[in-house]
C-alpha cells in the first residue's frame, strides 16, 4: 500500500480496502473473509464483533462466488463502525423478499455438495448486521451494504 494512502487513512481515522471476488472460483471461496477476519484480529477488535463481521462477509462472499460472475468487497473501518459493501455483476435477484426468506435457495447440486444452499445466507447476514441493505437489478447485479457498530450489543 502506498505511504500517501496510509497517511490519509491515519488522518481520517479510517482504514479502507477493496477486495476482488471471482465468480465460480470455488477453490478460493472464503479467502477474502478470512483475510478480513485476520486483519480485525490483528487490530484488536472484540471477538464478538469479529465473529459477526466474519459470518456476514463469508455468506456474502459465498453468494458472489456461487451466483455472480464477478464482485468487489469494499471494507471500511472507522472508530465507530465497520462498513462492508459487496457489489457484484451477475444475474441479480428478481424477488428480494423471497430471497431473504430462510430456506429459499436456487443453489445447484454442485453447491449443495459443497455444503451450501440451505437458504440461510442472506437472513443470517441480516441477523448479524446493525444496518443491512440489499438492492438488485436483474441481469445486472446485486449490492449489499452491511454495517456493524463497534459498540453494538447485537447478539
Amino acid at each position, binding site marked *: 500500500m502506498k505511504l500517501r494512502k496510509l497517511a490519509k487513512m491515519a488522518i481520517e481515522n479510517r482504514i479502507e480496502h477493496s477486495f476482488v471476488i471471482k465468480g465460480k472460483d470455488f*477453490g478460493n*471461496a*472464503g479467502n477474502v*473473509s*478470512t483475510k478480513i*477476519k485476520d486483519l480485525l484480529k490483528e487490530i484488536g477488535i472484540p*471477538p464478538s464483533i469479529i*465473529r459477526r463481521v*466474519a*459470518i456476514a462477509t*463469508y*455468506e456474502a462472499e459465498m453468494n458472489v462466488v456461487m451466483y455472480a460472475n464477478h464482485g468487489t468487497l469494499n471494507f471500511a473501518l472507522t472508530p465507530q463502525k465497520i462498513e462492508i459493501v459487496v457489489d457484484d455483476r451477475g444475474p441479480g435477484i428478481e424477488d428480494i423478499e423471497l430471497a431473504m426468506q430462510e430456506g429459499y435457495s436456487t443453489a445447484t447440486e454442485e453447491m449443495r455438495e*459443497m*455444503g*451450501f*444452499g*440451505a*437458504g*440461510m*445466507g442472506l437472513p*443470517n447476514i441480516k*441477523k448479524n448486521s446493525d444496518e443491512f441493505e440489499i438492492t438488485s437489478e436483474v441481469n445486472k447485479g446485486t449490492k449489499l451494504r452491511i454495517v456493524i457498530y463497534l459498540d453494538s450489543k447485537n447478539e
Partner: protein
Amino acid sequence: MNRKIKKMTLREIKDLLKCEVITGDDNLDLEVLSGGGCDLMSDVLAFGKPGMLLLTGLTNAQSVRTADIVDIKAIIYVRGKRPDKEGIELAKKKGIPLLTTKLMMFEACGILYSAGLPGVNEAEKIS
C-alpha cells in the same frame, strides 16, 4: 431432564470415538465447550458457537474455512472420511485439529452426548 454436562478435551473425545488424528496431534489437550453435527455450512454459520466441536461428513476445504469463521475449535469427520489436501493445509495454518472416526454421524454424536458433551444451546445455559 437433568443431565450432567461438561467440557471435554480432544484426547477424551479421540478415545471415545477411536479417532485417527489427521492434523493437530500436539493439540489434543484443547478443550471443547460443546458439540454439533452438521453437513450444511450455512447452518453451521447460523448456529455454530465459539469453542464448539464440529462433526461433519463434508470433506472439502469449506468445512475448515467455515469452522475458522465461527471459531470452532476442532473438526471430526465421520464415517472414515478425510478432508482434501487444501482443507488440511488450511487447518494447519489456523491451528484447527482435524480428526476422523469410522463411526457414523448418529453414533458419534450419541456417544459424545451420552458422555456429557453439551449441544450449543445447552452449553450456553450454563455459561
